[in-house]
């Protein structure tokens, strides 16, 4: 399961399957697997997974800066499915240090990376040390520039335990926003009330804004930062295997 060759082969197979089939594969092959729930439209993952396995593990990163509507929504999802949702919080000392040194809105002057590092990445790393696989709501259409190649299944090297492997599933990779919303409507899935106020992508309150007609959803996140080319990607249009 953990060899790269296997993962690439299985991903090729899963890439043509539906989100439900990808989820079924993930949940049937990993016992210790968790869904990362952002409090937005990725709630469809919970609905789909719950129909496959009732004892799903779900966690949300509670950065301390989410909208009140998002907290209410997370609670509504917990009650709707009668599941536990682990709220994963940042280390208080690190948040205190950041706020003491730079104030509550340093990300508008610097960029969002330092704050996200403290409030999202550090707690996420800690959480992912406890599982063998995780499931996200990443989709290709969320960021055509940097997420065009998001696979259905991948070897997550960044968050894996030392000398161990971590498998990441992105069952919605090939779905569009419209398909996600069609599923939500057709299945009466609860959703975050912020979506009715024009929010498409939802994150922390200071870093999220509604988007207007014709705007891409990414324009509602960290809009004050200039969109830059991802430095790490090999833009391999010419790579032939």
């Amino acid at each position, binding site marked *: 399961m953990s060899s790269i060759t296997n993962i690439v082969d299985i991903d090729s197979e899963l890439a043509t399957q539906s989100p439900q089939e990808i989820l079924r594969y993930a949940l049937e092959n990993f016992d210790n697997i968790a869904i*990362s729930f952002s409090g937005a439209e990725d709630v469809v993952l919970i609905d789909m997974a719950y129909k496959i396995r009732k004892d799903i593990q779900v966690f949300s990163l509670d950065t301390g800066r989410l909208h009140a509507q998002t907290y209410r929504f997370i609670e509504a999802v917990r009650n709707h499915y009668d599941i536990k949702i682990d709220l994963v919080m940042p280390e208080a000392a690190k948040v205190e240090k950041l706020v003491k040194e730079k104030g509550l809105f340093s990300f508008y002057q610097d960029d969002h990376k330092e704050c*996200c590092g403290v409030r999202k990445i*550090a707690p996420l790393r800690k959480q992912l040390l406890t599982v063998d696989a995780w499931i996200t709501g*990443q989709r290709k259409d969320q960021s055509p520039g940097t997420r065009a190649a998001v696979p259905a299944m991948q070897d997550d*090297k*960044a968050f894996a335990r*030392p000398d161990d492997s971590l498998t990441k599933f992105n069952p919605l990779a090939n779905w569009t926003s419209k398909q996600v919303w069609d599923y939500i409507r057709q299945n009466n899935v609860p959703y975050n009330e912020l979506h009715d106020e024009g929010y498409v992508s939802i994150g922390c309150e200071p870093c999220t804004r509604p988007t207007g007609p014709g705007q891409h959803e990414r324009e509602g*996140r960290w809009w004050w930062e200039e969109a830059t080319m991802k430095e790490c*990607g090999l833009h391999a249009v010419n790579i032939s*295997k």
Partner: protein
Amino acid sequence: MKITMVKKIFADGSPCKKCGEVEEKMRLAGQLERIDQTVVADESNPESEGMVLAAEHGIDRAPFFVVERDGEPTQIYTVYFKFVKEVLDAETSEEDEIAEIMNDVDLDFL
């Protein structure tokens, strides 16, 4: 053991910033001496050594490290701190590790 570092040059000829940062970090830490060879992945030239290695191993980011040991499968490291810890047996700080992840991960889905 043979270690190859692959760094990138953009199609317009400019160097990859992250590759430069990693190389400088390694130089300061005295780790560059452990690298047997450095090759370039030139985005404008699919035949460049680095692009060929990237295609061969299915790698879509840079820098990355190819670690070859006698009688063992070749290992590829795309995460610098993992490479440093697992191959060079060196320490890295949590801050540095998080900073590296931040460069590679879009966070809007979390």
